[in-house]
Every structure is written in structure tokens, then in C-alpha cells.
């Protein structure tokens, strides 16, 4: 039963992506560009070589983490829209550890930096969580506001107290050599954080799907009154979910620092948390789905730039196509329902026609 549902879901996922790509093709065509060239450039650019593939994968790391962060919180009925702020603060915390405790040996240094990022991100999520469960202040609005606060705050930090000594670049100093995560493919930014990300994804999957706390979080998200009734403290679970979510965003930030940029930068995230949110929402907050959808988004992002290079189809077109894909996937259930209605009617009409014919035949 479960498997069947999943294949049905995957099927309609593929169908909506295909439909959206077709619309994209039509748009390209209308603009006098060849869709075949466009899409082959996209695929090639994203997957065509070791380097391209590595670049694509590098882009999925933050999406997986922020996607999982969304999955954890949304499943638990508390909506963390503040991933961006948590990511910035986490990234800064990771960088701070990295440029302050330069003498630490690599392994421990990295652990400390990631832990600091998780802690700071988690704490920054703890605030709206408390405001929500204790004072019933809508977390959607507080987390949106706190995004701006965190981004501006780190902005201040890197321009005044922690401005880089050299290079006038709106960033902190470089982290110590020991902190820099090993790059895996020449020139590409793909680094060992991908392994940690996979590990985290598996843990989160296990945590959400196979443990009692994961079960409790899900129940709180579906019906908090039911959870309370069953002896689960929905408030505590919501706080847990939010903090975990914030920690994941913080970790995502620290990976950007330790693996990609080697320092904290002012614009370190081009909206990873929002993309991650989308990734998770599309797959209905399923942790396994998040990984696959993040890869798909990575392909789109890397591929669209290659497409722009080779065919001069503007990469904004990819945004349009991407949003159409999202619309189709989100509307998938509705389309299916309408389809089913039409089919059911047809079926019914056919059978009623048959019985009518039978009756008439009988009368004769």
C-alpha cells in the first residue's frame, strides 16, 4: 500500500516536471531559441563532466541542510521561516571559531566550529519558539523579522569589529588552514561537507521516521491536541523541532564557511534557506524527498548558468520554468482529483449507458 502510494507520487512528480519543462520549451521556442539545444546545454552543464557534476553537488549541500531544517520544523507544526538568519549567524559563529582558535588541531577545530554554528543557529531559533509556545506570538512573522535582524547584525560585525584585515571585502579574516575542508574535485568547491551532509540527512531521516521522538514530532505537527492527550508535551516538542531546525541551518552556514569560502562573507547566502524551504515543501517535508529535490534544484541552478553561456537563453527563464515546475508539483493532487472526477464520470456514464441499453433490449 505504502509502496504503491509512493510510486504514484513519484509518477505524478515526474509528470509535473515534464509538463513544466514542456512549457519552458515553448517559452524558449517563442523566443526563437531551440529548446533541444537549451535543455541539452542545461543537462550537460549540470552533469556533463566530473567538474560540472561536482559543482552541482556542491550547490545541493546547503539546500539539503536547509531543506531538512524545514522538514523538521514544518512536520512538527511550527513554521521556521527564519532559516536565513540562523544560517548567517551559524556561519559567523563557525568563522569566528575558525579564525580565533587557529591553533586547534583540524578535526577538533572543525567539530568545534560546526558545533558552535549549530548552537548559535539553534539558539536563534529558540527565541521565536519560546515566543510561540509561551506567548502565542506567530512564529512566521517573528522569524521573518529575525532574518533581517541577523543579516544586518552580521553585516555590522564584518564591517566593524571583525572586518578582514586585508582585502576590503565585507568579510571576516580567513579561517585557519586546519579548518578548511578538503576539496574533492579540482577547481570545484565540492568538499568533504557533502559526506557530513549525507550523514546528517541519514540521521535526520532515521530520527524522523524511525524513532519515537520523530513520531512524536509528526503527531504534534498533525494534531497538537491529540499529541497532548497522548502524553506528549507539544510545546516541548515544538521547541525541540525549532531548535533542531535552527541548528541545521547554522550547520549549513558553517559548511559554507569551512568548505566554500573559508571565511564569513557579507552575502554568504543567496537565499539558501528559502530555496531549502521550497525543496522541502515540494516533497511534503519528506526527508528522503528533500535530498532528491535538492539535487534537482542544484541541477537547475548549475545547468541554467551553463545554458545561459552556451545558448544565451537568459537564466531568468530558468526561474520562470522553475516556478512553473513548483506550481505543477504543488497542484499535483488537485490535477489528479480533477482527472479522477472526469474519469469517474466517464466510467459511470459508460456503465449506465450499458444498463440502459440492456433494459431497452429487454423491453423489446
Amino acid at each position: 500500500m505504502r509502496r504503491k502510494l509512493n510510486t504514484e507520487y513519484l509518477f505524478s512528480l515526474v509528470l509535473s516536471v515534464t509538463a513544466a519543462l514542456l512549457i519552458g520549451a515553448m517559452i524558449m521556442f517563442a523566443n526563437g531559441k531551440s529548446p533541444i539545444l537549451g535543455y541539452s546545454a542545461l543537462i550537460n552543464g549540470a552533469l556533463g563532466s566530473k567538474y560540472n557534476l561536482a559543482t552541482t553537488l556542491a550547490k545541493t549541500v546547503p539546500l539539503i541542510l536547509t531543506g531538512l531544517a524545514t522538514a523538521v520544523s514544518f512536520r512538527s507544526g511550527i513554521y521556521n521561516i527564519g532559516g536565513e538568519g540562523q544560517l548567517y549567524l551559524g556561519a559567523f559563529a563557525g568563522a569566528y571559531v575558525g579564525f580565533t582558535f587557529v591553533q586547534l588541531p583540524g578535526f577538533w577545530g572543525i567539530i568545534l566550529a560546526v558545533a558552535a554554528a549549530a548552537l548559535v543557529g539553534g539558539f536563534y531559533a529558540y527565541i521565536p519558539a519560546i515566543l510561540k509556545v509561551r506567548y502565542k506570538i506567530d512564529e512566521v512573522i517573528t522569524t521573518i523579522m529575525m532574518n533581517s535582524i541577523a543579516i544586518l547584525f552580521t553585516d555590522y560585525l564584518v564591517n566593524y569589529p571583525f572586518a578582514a584585515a586585508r582585502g576590503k571585502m565585507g568579510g571576516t579574516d580567513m579561517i585557519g588552514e586546519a579548518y578548511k575542508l578538503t576539496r574533492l574535485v579540482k577547481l570545484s568547491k565540492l568538499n568533504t561537507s557533502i559526506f557530513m551532509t549525507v550523514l546528517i540527512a541519514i540521521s535526520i531521516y532515521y530520527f524522523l521516521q524511525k524513532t519515537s521522538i520523530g513520531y512524536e514530532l509528526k503527531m504534534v505537527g498533525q494534531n497538537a491536541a491529540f499529541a497532548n492527550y497522548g502524553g506528549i508535551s507539544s510545546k516541548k516538542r515544538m521547541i525541540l523541532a525549532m531548535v533542531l531546525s535552527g541548528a541545521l541551518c547554522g550547520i549549513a552556514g558553517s559548511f559554507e564557511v569551512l568548505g566554500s569560502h573559508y571565511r564569513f562573507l557579507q552575502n554568504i547566502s543567496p537565499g539558501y534557506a528559502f530555496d531549502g524551504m521550497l525543496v522541502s515543501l515540494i516533497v511534503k517535508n519528506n526527508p528522503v524527498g528533500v535530498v532528491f529535490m535538492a539535487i534537482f534544484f542544484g541541477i537547475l541552478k548549475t545547468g541554467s548558468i551553463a545554458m545561459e553561456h552556451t545558448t544565451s537563453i537568459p537564466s531568468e527563464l530558468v526561474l520562470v520554468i522553475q516556478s512553473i515546475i513548483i506550481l505543477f508539483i504543488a497542484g499535483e493532487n488537485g490535477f489528479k482529483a480533477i482527472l479522477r472526477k472526469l474519469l469517474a464520470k466517464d466510467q459511470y456514464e459508460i456503465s449506465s449507458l450499458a444498463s440502459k441499453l440492456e433494459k431497452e433490449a429487454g423491453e423489446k
Partner: protein
Amino acid sequence: MNLRQRGEDVYRNIIELKEITKVFPGVLANDNINLSIREGEIHAIVGENGAGKSTLMKILYGLYQPNSGEIYIREKRMNIRSPIAAIRNGIGMVHQHFMLIPSFTVAENIVLGTEPRKKKFFMDFEKAVEITKKLVSIYGLEVTPELKVEEVSVGIQQRIEILKILHKGADILILDEPTAVLTPQETEELFVVIRKLVKEMNKTVIIITHKLQEVMALSDRVSVMRQGRLIGTMDTKDATEQKLAEMMVGREILFEALYKEGQQGKTLFTVNHLNVKNNRGLWALRDISFSIRNGEILGIAGVEGNGQSELVEALTGLREIESGEVYVDGNLVSGKSPKEIRGLGVVHVPEDRLATGLSKKATITENLLMGSQRQEPFTKGGIHLRSKLIRKKASELVEKFDVRTPSVEVAVETLSGGNMQKIVIAREFTHDAKILIISQPTRGVDIGAIEFIHRQIIQKRNEGYAILLVSAELDEIFRLSDRILTLFAGEITGEFDNKDITKKEIGFYMTGIRKPAEEEVSKCVES
């Protein structure tokens, strides 16, 4: 216009449904139904849960379109495409679930859709109140126009619904399970109004109900539905409850006497001087004291909204207690969390299964796991869930409690109400516990399932559990309880042995007309 030909042999069919068929995805809800309603009659429709009663009525009211079939109203073929068409044809419907906007006032709800206007564009609120007052004076259904619907009791909401459709000019009233939430007194009042509407105002009434006595007491004719088909229509005077029940279920039904056995021993559950507030910060319960022994069912009778919900919530840790103590087998549980109270052996069947008893979106397995998710053998080390074992246990429970479902992995929302309730009962009754707190165990559940649930409750009693039973159904209270408390306005107004009191008499205590003398109360507490 409205020719009444009652009492003669020639009837005029005000409504004729011909060969109505309605298919939902995977369900044949109405299968080729032919039904005629005579002008000026009270026509009852009975049937088990999911028989298709509501669907048929919604088709008549234009909320659903039939896949095939024809509808004749006053001998004219009609296409009822929407409720507007139904309203124009003088059809009004009171739905099984109240269709009132909670944040609107009574008057606003009554005029919704046909608002009186000022200067064409603006809502005329004064006029709405006026209209409501006029309706009240015509039909004798008392309501306060200015109150918000969320502030009035379900009984009043029922009246608002009826006034609403009368205001829309309905001659044909469809009432879908109107008595499910009413007290005997309120039910009786409603019946008086219905009879008056039919006799004096030439209305026609179709009433759906699960309660066969009501069919016998009120209707002129009765139709029975089963699994989407109309089994038959007959004059009520030719029917008996037994016969109707058999037609509904499709087999012989035996109202077996429930066999109570076993000794009542020590006191397991004690409540002392409990004071509790409601959501609005007002006193919901004052100075409640009682105790339950093992092997005993204590029934709480009362009109809904007199503190029953708050009582159950307070006892199970879901609501803060202002003062007083609750003991389970000598352990103080008041002030403890629901989890701790459960740990001490209290299980709870909540009054509203959809709001608190279940998660609709979760699977049957997940719903059955609630409360055991950290216990051996379902988890390893309190953390790792043993999915296979959990699924196996769930299947066993589903089998044992006769839940009708294709699989334990379907979402609970796909089940019928009765089957949902069985899930709750199955889960709670298999927890390791000594005390059962059961609230409205058979609300909206059909006869077959009621029988089943009642037998389960009695079995628990016979096993030595102490049981608190809260129900708005007096029949249920009388059928199951050993002892009965009446609750009115948050206070206990009487305590009775089941054998010592009649239904009618208890109504007076439930409505606060009679109160016990002081010493009597203290006597109950001591016992």
C-alpha cells in the same frame, strides 16, 4: 397553495426522487434510489453510518449533483444545481454538522445569504435582529439575536439552524440527525416544534436519525437505507424498532442484556473538592467530589456544557486545576502532566475523536501507537521504533476490534466515524491501566458499533476497572452505569443508584430544577 390532503387516501407527493445514483471515488453512496415524500408528513430516514442518508439529502439540497436520476418537486421535474435552487423551491436543510459561522451573531447567521440591506449595498444589522425576533415570536424557538454563535450552546445552535431555513422560506425541512447532541428535554422541545410546524404551518419534514424511539414517536412514515440502497418505506404505525433495526443492519439484531458480573472492591479513584475554570477563565467546576471503586461504572449525566468536558480534561491532566485533589489508587495525580497520569494507569476516550482522539492524517498504525511510542516492546531503548512489530500489533487490534479497513496503513480520515471510534477504543482499552475515563463513546456511531462498544466497556468493568462514563445519551448512561451523578452548572446535583431513578426524573436534576440536600452530597463523597 399548499394543499393538505392528510388523512385522506390520496396523497400528493411533494418530492419524488427517481432512480438517484451517486458515485464517489470508490464508493457507491446512493444506488438507484426511488423515494417519495408526501406533503405534510414527517418522514424519517434511518440507516447505519455510511448508508448514504446524508448524501441523498445533499443531492436534494443541491450540494451534490447525482450521477443519474431525476428529482420532481411538486410534480415538476427540477434540476437542483445548487442550494439556491433548492431554497427557491422551498427546501431547507439542517445539516448533520452545524453550518453556522462561529464568529457571527445569531442574527447574522440567520440572515446569511439573504441579508436585509440598506441602500442596496450595506448590511442592515438592525433589520436582521428584527427579523430574528419576529421569527422567534412566530415559531417559538427562543434565541438571543445579538449573541455570537460561538457563545451559545449546541441546543440553541440547533434552533438557529431551524430558524435560518425557515427564514429562507422553507416548506420542506430536512433535518439531518438533529437530536444527536440534544438532551431529552431539548429533544422533546424540538419535537413539539416540529409537530407544530407540520400541523399548523403546513410544512413537510424529513428527519434523519439513529434513534429508533424517536422515529416511532415522531414520524408518519419511515424509510430505511442500507449500503446506498433504499431497503423500504413504511408507515410508522406498521413498524417496530426491532424490525427497523433488522432492516438497517441486514440481519437480526439482538438487544442483548449486558451481563455485569464481579465484585466491586476498593476505591481506585478519588476526586476531592475539585475546582476548575473554562477557557474563558470562568468557573467550570465547583467543589466536585466523588470516588469510583474497581469494577464500577460511574455515569455522569448532564446537559452538555455543564462542565463535563472540563471535568474529563482536568482529570486527565489536559486542563489546569485551580484547587482540589485527584487520587489514583492512593497516588496524587492532580497537577501532573497527561503523560504522568497515563503512567499511573489512567486511560481516556475523549469526547471529540477528531479534535483530540485521533490524527486524521496519520495512519491507523500511527494512531494506535499513541501513548506506547516509548514503551517496550514497541521500541528498543525507548527510541528506536520497531516498525514491523508495531504494524503486526496494529493489525491484530484492528482484527480484534472489528475495524473495517483495507489496511492498517491507510489514513484514519478515510474511515467512517464508527470505525474511527473503534480505533480510539482499541488503543485506549489495550493500554495497561486501572482506570478508564470515557467520554461520549458512541457519538455519531451506528447501532451495530454501539452494541460492540458497549460490550467492550462492560467487559472492562467486569475485569475490575474503575470507569468514569460521561455521556449525553441518557440511554447509554442507564444501560452501562452502576451509579449515576448529575452535573449542572459545574456542580453535582445528585447521586443515584442506577436502579433507583428513572430517566424522566433524572432530567430534573440535570437541568438544576431539583438539587440534593446538603447532607446527601457529603454522604455520596464518603461512600
